[in-house]
């Protein structure tokens, strides 16, 4: 189950390595070195090969950028397209129609459903139930896996309905969509969504019944917050320790630096503090904005504190967000009126286009410099995983002592499970333009 | 108030919707022009408001734009993006469906999937499109084998024609003699006037509709206006393609450098063929589910512009875009006339409008085949009656009763069947062999028996490999015998040269059987057989026995051999050019790779054997075997039904020209 060398030495001085993290998206590794019960080094290595996306979008038009950044990640392409399109629209002063704004949320709901269903059931649940994968899980709990696939299918159908296909959708453009669906088309998903809501609720009770490893810490949580919506593609950037900045002002509070063991940059606050993004942060900071159905579900399992304090419980946060995304999708479809125009015309203007949206894995920040020709001159893309990377390493350091008594393989698996609980999206994480260089940890 | 002696009526503009409603109340789906996504398409019409009222369209090579038209007029557009074949000959049709109780591979067939074909009324059919429907009728139900799906869909279409009031920038129906006047082939024909429509009745079905409408007899003035309107269109459309002598001109220009020049612009994207209202080529694809418990075949529109279209084992007959464009253009404007008695083009201009790079077929034709001196007029076919006696050729089961290995990768399978036509097959005919979920390749019959037939197959691909793997007792579905075989009677009283190579001996074996049975009527039988190596020869024992008995002269040769081989080495042409034949009495039957046959023919010509007595069997890609899928065309010939056996005299230059 673990790769690379995993050798037992005396308990006081141990090395844990996972050469290739599995059931995560992209290629990463874990190195944890413990000496005299002290963690001297915890590294989440990212050896996913660099693809230089910030450079690839230079000299491109905004609409081309929207197509290109989707390719950063096959699991959350919608998120990349949303952060980019909102950034451009904010610079160009394009006001999308209310219908299109709702369709964008519906689009995002589809991706949350697909991504969370994938992670909860196919990637994360096997850890709790002691299976190497959902394939083996299906042998004993076929109906559970079929349920998961049905839920995931509905999410994918939503994305495909608006974006033509679930992976790398192709209809997003500045001002709206290249095509918006007929009402009948959306209604054709209505029944699937009703079933999906049942499944999502069942998922909540399913995860509530799981047993998570004991581990508590008080992380700094960051997410978007909107006056009256559960945050997706609008609002302000806030934290549980008082941060409250505009959605395009990420750089006022955070910065990235490069470390030698990773092809991803790590983000910290200007003060050098680590922080955590993702479902647990979103939920903790916005539980009062949940759809009533999701709020009920959360109340019924009452795991709010666990979700905040124990990273393993992020699976519950995802389950709650599944309920929210499905319930909101139903509301949007029921109220849908096809807009006369699929997109508002917009005219490019030079300047800085910046925006952040809530990818399934957390805050995704894009910043583009547009030149006089209307082409991108420079770009910065800060995905959630690179921002979480430092927090994950901090948590590994904090968690390690509790597993030192376990046999090597079991301990290593625990560490891998901890990493998986952040749903790291590693190919996303690989590529970023940096601002300030810090000497790498040696 | 309808008077049976009266055939022309007037319907006020405001009552057009009544026409649509009466068509619908006649239990028909009405299909007509409609504007969608900024383009003129054909779609289901529920009321007059769905029609393109006050809309015009400007067509030019590679361009089509919807424009503001006359506020109230409905039909002031040239033909739109789609043709009616979408409804009479849909892009995709599921054919056979198989299911199986225990798997893993489908074994039981559900009869053809039930078709729910609703009665349709086509509203707004232009003169050129009526001509196009007739042409497809001729192709798909003119026999000998009909496309039963097409017949079912064509049955009971109600045609509400509309006479054009404007000419599009790419229209050339006047050149092709198909319009703009609507003369016949309709149930109702509308001519749009400013205040309404002159309706002509063309059939009893049309009567029933008109009787329900608040029409008045058309006045002479209204009739005159209608005539004036359409004649204006004729004047707007100068004759741009001189069709007289065009077929001969095109055939003569087969080697014109212009083909390569067009190929530099042509994208081979298939748009022209798929928007064309007469193009009928299709391919059959195989579908099956993952555990192989069910399978189906699907017929879908294909085009002579795709690479796979002319693909065969060993290569491709039209690898270059120039070959494909020439095939398309010469088929439309030359060989079609020989096949079906009319041009394959009706001058609707779609191939010009919808060419993404604006290639104008009118200009290309005039550049390649400028008007000629000796005109030949070609008439449209009269409306083709559905041929009741013609039936789709059935698939029948044949049981493997014997299996013999011939070479490392070839076997001979003996099948039993009680299907009489198969038992009465002629030497040189072939069968289509169906492997659900895999393919349905054509395979020559290598011997006929009273109770069945033999196939000799080389495992050259997935399908042939699986046929080779059949064992005694297993069953293969076949359709046939198809094709025209060897003209055996030609052998009577003559010296017969049978010249072949490799697996090519298989289709000649039934011929040898016949010759041997008729031995006393035949002066001399010489078999020249080339193979790659000694191990690649077929039927070695049989041939040895025949040779020993002096029944036939057998000269075998191989391309290469080790020292253990004491027989001939060299290509088959080196055998026959040493043969001292009295060639004035010789008839030659040849089968092998086309290049080998060409070399052989050269030698035979040298020896003075006339084209009439040189017979070859050709290989082409085939998806149906009955002349409907269009893949196997060689010039004006369908290799599957006109061949595969041809005399050189029949083929003419077609045999020698690359890429036809």
């Amino acid at each position, binding site marked *: 189950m673990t790769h690379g060398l995993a050798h037992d030495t005396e308990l006081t001085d141990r090395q844990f390595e996972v050469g290739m993290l599995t059931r995560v998206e992209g290629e990463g590794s874990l190195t944890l070195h413990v000496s005299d019960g002290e963690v001297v080094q915890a590294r989440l290595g990212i050896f996913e090969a660099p693809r230089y996306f910030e450079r690839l979008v230079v000299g491109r038009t905004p609409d081309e950028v929207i197509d290109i950044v989707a390719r950063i990640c096959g699991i959350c392409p919608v998120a990349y397209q949303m952060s980019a399109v909102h950034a451009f629209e904010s610079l160009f002063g394009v006001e999308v129609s209310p219908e299109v704004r709702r369709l964008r949320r519906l689009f995002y709901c589809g991706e949350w459903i697909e991504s969370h269903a994938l992670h909860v059931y196919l990637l994360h649940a096997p850890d709790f139930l002691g299976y190497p994968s959902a394939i083996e899980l299906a042998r004993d709990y076929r109906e559970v896996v079929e349920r998961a696939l049905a839920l995931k299918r509905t999410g994918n159908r939503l994305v495909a309905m608006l974006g033509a296909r679930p992976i790398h959708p192709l209809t997003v453009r500045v001002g709206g969509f*290249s095509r918006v669906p007929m009402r009948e088309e959306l209604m054709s998903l209505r029944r699937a969504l009703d079933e999906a809501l049942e499944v999502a609720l069942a998922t909540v009770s399913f995860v509530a019944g799981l047993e998570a490893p004991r581990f508590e810490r008080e992380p700094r949580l960051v997410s978007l917050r909107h006056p009256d919506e559960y945050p997706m593609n609008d609002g302000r950037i806030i934290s549980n320790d008082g941060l409250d900045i505009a959605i395009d002002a990420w750089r006022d509070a955070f910065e990235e630096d490069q470390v030698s063991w990773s092809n991803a940059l790590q983000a910290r606050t200007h003060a050098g503090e680590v922080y955590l993004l993702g479902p647990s942060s979103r939920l903790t900071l916005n539980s009062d904005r949940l759809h009533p159905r999701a709020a009920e579900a959360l109340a019924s399992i009452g795991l709010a504190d666990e979700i905040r304090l124990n990273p393993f419980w992020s699976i519950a946060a995802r389950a709650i967000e599944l309920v929210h995304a499905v319930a909101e999708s139903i509301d949007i479809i029921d109220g849908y009126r096809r807009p006369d125009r699929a997109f508002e015309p917009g005219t490019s203007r030079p300047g800085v286009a910046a925006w952040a949206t809530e990818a399934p894995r957390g805050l995704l920040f894009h910043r583009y410099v547009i030149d006089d020709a209307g082409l991108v001159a420079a770009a910065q893309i800060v995905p959630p995983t690179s921002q979480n990377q430092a927090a994950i390493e901090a948590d590994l350091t904090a968690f390690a002592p509790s597993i030192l008594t376990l046999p090597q393989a079991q301990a290593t698996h625990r560490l891998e499970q901890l990493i998986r609980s952040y749903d790291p999206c590693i190919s996303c994480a690989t590529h970023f333009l940096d601002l300030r260089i810090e000497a790498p940890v040696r | 108030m309808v008077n049976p002696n009266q055939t022309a009526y007037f319907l006020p503009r405001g009552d057009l919707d009544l026409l649509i409603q009466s068509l619908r109340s006649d239990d028909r789906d009405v299909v007509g022009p409609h504007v969608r996504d900024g383009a003129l398409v054909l779609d289901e019409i529920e009321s007059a408001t769905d029609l393109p009222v006050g809309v015009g369209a400007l067509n030019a090579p590679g361009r089509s734009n919807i424009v503001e038209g006359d506020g109230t007029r409905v039909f002031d557009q040239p033909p739109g993006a789609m043709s009616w074949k979408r409804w009479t000959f849909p892009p995709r049709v599921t054919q056979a469906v*198989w299911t199986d109780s225990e798997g893993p591979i489908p074994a039981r067939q559900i009869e053809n999937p039930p078709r729910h074909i609703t009665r349709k009324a086509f509203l707004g059919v232009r003169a050129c499109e009526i001509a196009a429907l007739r042409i497809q009728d001729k192709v798909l139900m003119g026999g000998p084998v009909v496309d039963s799906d097409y017949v079912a869909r064509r049955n009971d279409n109600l045609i509400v024609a509309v006479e054009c009031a404007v000419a599009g920038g790419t229209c050339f129906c006047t050149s092709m003699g198909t319009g703009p006047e609507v003369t016949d082939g309709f149930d109702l024909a509308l001519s749009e006037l400013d205040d309404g429509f002159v309706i002509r009745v063309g059939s009893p079905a049309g009567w029933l509709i008109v009787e329900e409408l608040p029409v008045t007899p058309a006045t002479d003035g209204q009739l005159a206006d209608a005539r004036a309107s359409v004649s204006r269109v004729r004047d707007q459309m100068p004759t741009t393609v001189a069709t007289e002598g065009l077929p001969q001109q095109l055939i003569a220009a087969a080697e014109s450098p212009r083909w390569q020049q067009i190929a530099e612009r042509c994208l081979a994207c298939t748009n022209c063929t798929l928007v064309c209202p007469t193009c009928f080529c299709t391919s059959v694809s195989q579908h099956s589910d993952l555990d192989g418990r069910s399978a189906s075949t699907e017929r879908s529109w294909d085009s002579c512009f795709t690479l796979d279209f002319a693909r065969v084992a060993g290569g491709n007959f039209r690898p270059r875009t120039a070959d494909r464009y020439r095939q398309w253009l010469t088929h439309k404007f030359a060989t079609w006339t020989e096949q079906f008695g009319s041009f394959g083009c009706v001058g609707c201009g779609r191939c010009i409008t919808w060419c993404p790079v604006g290639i104008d077929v009118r200009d290309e034709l005039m550049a390649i085949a400028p008007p000629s001196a000796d005109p030949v007029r070609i008439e449209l076919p009269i409306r083709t009656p559905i041929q009741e006696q013609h039936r789709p050729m059935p698939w029948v089961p044949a049981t493997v009763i014997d299996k013999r290995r011939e070479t490392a990768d070839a076997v001979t399978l003996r099948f039993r069947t009680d299907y009489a036509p198969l038992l009465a097959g002629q030497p040189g005919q072939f069968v289509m062999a169906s492997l659900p979920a895999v393919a349905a390749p054509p395979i020559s019959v290598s011997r006929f028996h009273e109770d069945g037939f033999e196939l000799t197959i080389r495992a050259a691909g997935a399908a042939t*490999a699986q046929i080779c793997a059949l064992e005694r007792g297993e069953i293969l579905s076949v359709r046939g015998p198809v094709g025209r075989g060897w003209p055996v009677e030609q052998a009577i009283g003559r010296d017969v040269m049978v010249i072949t190579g490799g697996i090519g001996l298989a289709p000649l074996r039934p011929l040898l059987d016949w010759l041997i049975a008729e031995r006393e009527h035949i002066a001399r039988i010489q078999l020249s057989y080339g193979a790659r190596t000694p191990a690649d020869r077929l039927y070695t024992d049989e041939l040895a026995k025949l040779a020993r008995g002096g029944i036939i002269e057998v000269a075998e040769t191989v391309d290469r051999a080790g020292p253990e081989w004491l027989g001939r080495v060299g290509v088959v042409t080196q055998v026959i050019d040493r043969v001292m034949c009295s060639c004035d009495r010789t008839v030659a039957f040849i089968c092998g790779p086309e290049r080998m046959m060409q070399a052989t023919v050269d030698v035979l010509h040298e020896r003075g054997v006339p084209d009439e007595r040189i017979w070859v069997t050709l290989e082409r890609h085939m998806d149906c075997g009955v002349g409907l899928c269009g893949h196997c065309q060689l010039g004006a010939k369908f290799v599957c039904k006109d061949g595969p056996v041809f005399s050189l005299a029949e083929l003419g230059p077609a045999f020698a020209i690359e890429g036809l």
Partner: protein
Amino acid sequence: MTATGIPLTPRPQPNPRWAAARRPRVGVVKFSSCDGCQLTMLDLEDELLAITERFEIVEFAEATSNRSHGPFDVLLVEGSISTSDQAEEIVQLRHQATSLVAIGACATSGGIQALRNLGDHDAFRKAVYPNPQWIEALATSKPVSEYVAVDAELYGCPISGRQLLELLTALTVGRRAQLPDEAVCAECKRLGNPCILVTHGVACLGPVTRTGCGALCPSFGRGCYGCFGPRESANTPSLGDWLRTIGYGDDEIAREFAKFNVGAPAFRQMVEDKS
């Protein structure tokens, strides 16, 4: 043609290159890519369980913690080769695989990251990383076929789930996978879309792009951007000339082709000619 009344049929043999008894061993590995193509298999929700029953998934890091270094009956390879480690690993994997199938634009043409093949790699590295010396990568991003022989290729960014299923099904029944090499236009016309290039003058690469996606872009109101790569005899110069005649600038035309299959010769040539 019509196929009527086929009463009985033979059982096609399993792929002769496999022992009939055991389930074929399938591996899924990735190099430089976004994971979208392997995710396509997980997105076959209706067939996924059937696939795992018909095949033994022995390596698929994104989906299972069970690992294998081979041997594989079928190895699906996602991603382009863009580091020297990858160049070595793909050779090792080739030795372990009976059939090696490259899946997706990255594996078949180098992907969007192949844009660096046209430029100066160091410039790319410096543009993104403050300490480029820590970044180990080749100057080029190349398709798998540049390093080892591939038995089949699935095109697309991402690949089509239908084509992936066709490939797997074809392997099980032993037929030639039906992956047509015709233009996107053919499917677009079967769907009944009026040509978007002809009606709206929108740049559409459909005529030179391989089919397989289902003509999604034109069906959703935009021009094809060539994510399945060039088809056989793709006449890109002619399309380029036409785009210029309807008002596109050379730089715009170059950018149309400089996307997810920029590594494919027919597209790359246009980028180099026009920029």
